[in-house]
């Protein structure tokens, strides 16, 4: 059955009906034949036996000679033998039971089988010898009761078969429906999955092993699919997040660069202003000393001095604001968050050829530092490391290790390394190995200055071609009132 529109239930029902349409008539006719045959045989046997007993009675009994007794005996055949016709023919003399059907006029020869002769009678004709006389006993048995019984039995069988057929169809429909229910359930869920709803589990409540196994296998496939799908979603999400965080970082970077430019400009202006203020202050003070204490001009110059001091304060404020000058604000600092922020910032700058790794202890105590300056140190060292690896693939590792009494911050690159002559001079201000115009030569000097201002120490390990490691040792704050490693970030 290749028709695609046949449902499982329909298919099974049609099959059951088709099978029964073939089997039931065969059964009906087969069993009907047996029933019919057995009834007929019984009837024939009864008729012949009855006729034989009657004939024997005539042959040996006293009834033969008496017409009245003969009639009585024949009546018995009608009353008890279901006969409609009973006659004793002795030559020309015929005695016939008056109880039989008067319509029957002709007696035939013995019927060979049931229901022959065109009427409802079964004739048995027996010769009788009695005291030298020959006679003939003719009994016509009524076939109708037997025929009715046969018909009744056949009708009952038909009824039972009909009931059976109905039950079989109902059972087939029920069973196929029950079979197809888990299949439909699987189908529904499969469609649901195909349409993108992966969350629904493929579970069927069935006792049929094949269906259960099929559901289990499909469920395993679904889980795999869901897993793959989830991983893809996760990857897409991560990509989106990383892109958005990259955008955010670049925004921060631009902001920071703008601030740095402002700071650099402010620094330049401050330098100029501070230089301008030096002669103003010094010459004013010199002029004041030449003037008598009560002179008006000395009072005027005093006001110049006051203004010059105000100007100095204004410059200080500008510098403090722009983070260029200002006393370094040493405070208990959590280097983990500083390292994290600096790496994030630097990672946005670095090309993909550089792999950035971090090895940060989970328990890092607080140290005295200025978070902004410490961040500058890290970015500066990372920039140096990146430049040492420029043009090639490399690994930049930033480590933060708790090794009492210090916290060790390390920046390691796999770059070209340095010879001893270079190492001896790297912390000198204005020393640079880069071509003119590419570096100020101040980076590591400033790093050194900042590190010293923290009370920390910096060391370098390097060999030509073997990369470079800068280590900064921060003294751990003896008693900061807090347990180490639980410093608040940010």
């Amino acid at each position, binding site marked *: 059955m290749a028709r695609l529109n046949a449902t499982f239930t329909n298919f099974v029902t049609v099959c059951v009906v088709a099978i029964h349409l073939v089997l039931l008539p065969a059964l009906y006719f087969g069993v009907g034949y047996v029933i019919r045959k057995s009834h007929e045989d019984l009837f024939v046997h009864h008729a012949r036996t009855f006729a034989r007993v009657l004939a024997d009675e005539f042959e040996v009994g006293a009834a033969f000679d008496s017409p009245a007794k003969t009639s009585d005996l024949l009546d018995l055949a009608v009353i008890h033998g279901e006969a409609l016709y009973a006659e004793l023919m002795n030559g020309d003399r015929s005695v016939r039971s008056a109880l039989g059907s008067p319509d029957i006029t002709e007696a035939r020869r013995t019927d060979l089988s049931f229901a022959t002769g065109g009427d409802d009678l079964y004739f048995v004709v027996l010769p009788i010898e009695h005291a030298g006389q020959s006679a003939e006993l003719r009994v016509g048995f009524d076939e109708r009761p037997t025929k009715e019984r046969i018909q009744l039995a056949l009708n009952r069988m038909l009824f039972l078969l009909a009931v059976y057929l109905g039950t079989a169809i109902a059972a087939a429909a029920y069973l196929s429906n029950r079979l197809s229910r888990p299949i439909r359930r699987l189908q529904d869920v499969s469609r649901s999955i195909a349409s993108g709803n992966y969350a629904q589990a493929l579970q069927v409540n069935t006792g049929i092993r094949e269906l259960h196994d099929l559901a289990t296998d499909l469920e395993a496939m679904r889980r795999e699919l869901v897993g793959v799908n989830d991983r893809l979603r996760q990857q897409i999400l991560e990509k989106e997040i990383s892109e958005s965080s990259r955008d955010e970082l670049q925004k921060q970077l631009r902001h920071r660069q703008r*601030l*740095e*430019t402002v*700071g*650099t*400009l402010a*620094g*330049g*202006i*401050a*330098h*100029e*202003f*501070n*230089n*301008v*203020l*030096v*002669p*103003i*202050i*010094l*010459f004013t*003070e*010199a002029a004041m*000393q030449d003037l008598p204490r009560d002179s008006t001009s000395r009072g005027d110059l005093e006001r110049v001095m006051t203004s*010059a001091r105000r100007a*100095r304060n204004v410059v200080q404020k500008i*510098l403090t604001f722009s*983070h*260029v*000058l*200002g*006393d*370094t604000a040493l405070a208990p600092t959590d280097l983990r968050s500083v390292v994290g922020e600096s790496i994030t910032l630097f990672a946005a700058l670095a090309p993909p050829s550089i792999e950035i790794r971090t090895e940060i202890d989970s328990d890092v105590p607080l140290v005295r530092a200025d978070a*902004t*300056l410490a961040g*500058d*140190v890290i*970015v*500066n060292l990372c*920039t140096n490391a990146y430049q040492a690896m420029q043009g090639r693939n490399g690994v930049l590792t930033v480590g933060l290790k708790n090794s009492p009494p210090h916290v060790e911050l390390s920046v390691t690159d796999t770059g070209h390394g340095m010879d001893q002559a270079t190492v001896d001079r790297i*912390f*000198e*201000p*204005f020393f640079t190995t880069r071509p003119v*115009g590419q*570096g*100020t030569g*101040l*980076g590591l*000097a*400033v790093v*050194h*200055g*900042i590190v*010293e*201002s923290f009370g920390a120490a910096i060391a370098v390990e390097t060999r030509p071609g073997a990369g470079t490691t800068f280590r900064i040792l921060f003294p751990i704050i003896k008693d900061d009132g807090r347990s180490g490693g639980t410093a608040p970030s940010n």
Partner: protein
Amino acid sequence: MRRILVIDDEPDVRDGIKRVLDRAGFSVRTVDNATDAMLELKRLAADVIITDIIMPKLNGVEAIDCIVREFPMVHIIAISGGGSFDVTGYQPAAITTTAYLAAAKRAGAHCILTKPFESRELIDAVEQVMGTGGA
């Protein structure tokens, strides 16, 4: 009389320092760059050198380096008003007066002074280095 050499590329700064220290009783000479300062020191020794950090040609930290090497007896005061060296190049925000002066101190300056300063601070610094530093 104590001899002082002032190195600064700003004439007004040089002259202002000279005026104050002259009045305080020192013998003050001035030059506008570190190279001339080395020549001047070879010509006539000084007890104290007051040098700016950010200058064209030889900068103050390099100058201190040379002076410490060639004239170890001299006392050095580094002065700086901070500011940046180069607006276009890569500069961490931390290029501060503090950092410059820290570099100067490391190079061998005995005292550091942030610009602008008043006469009293300048004289105190000179007296301080002559009293303690040097040899």
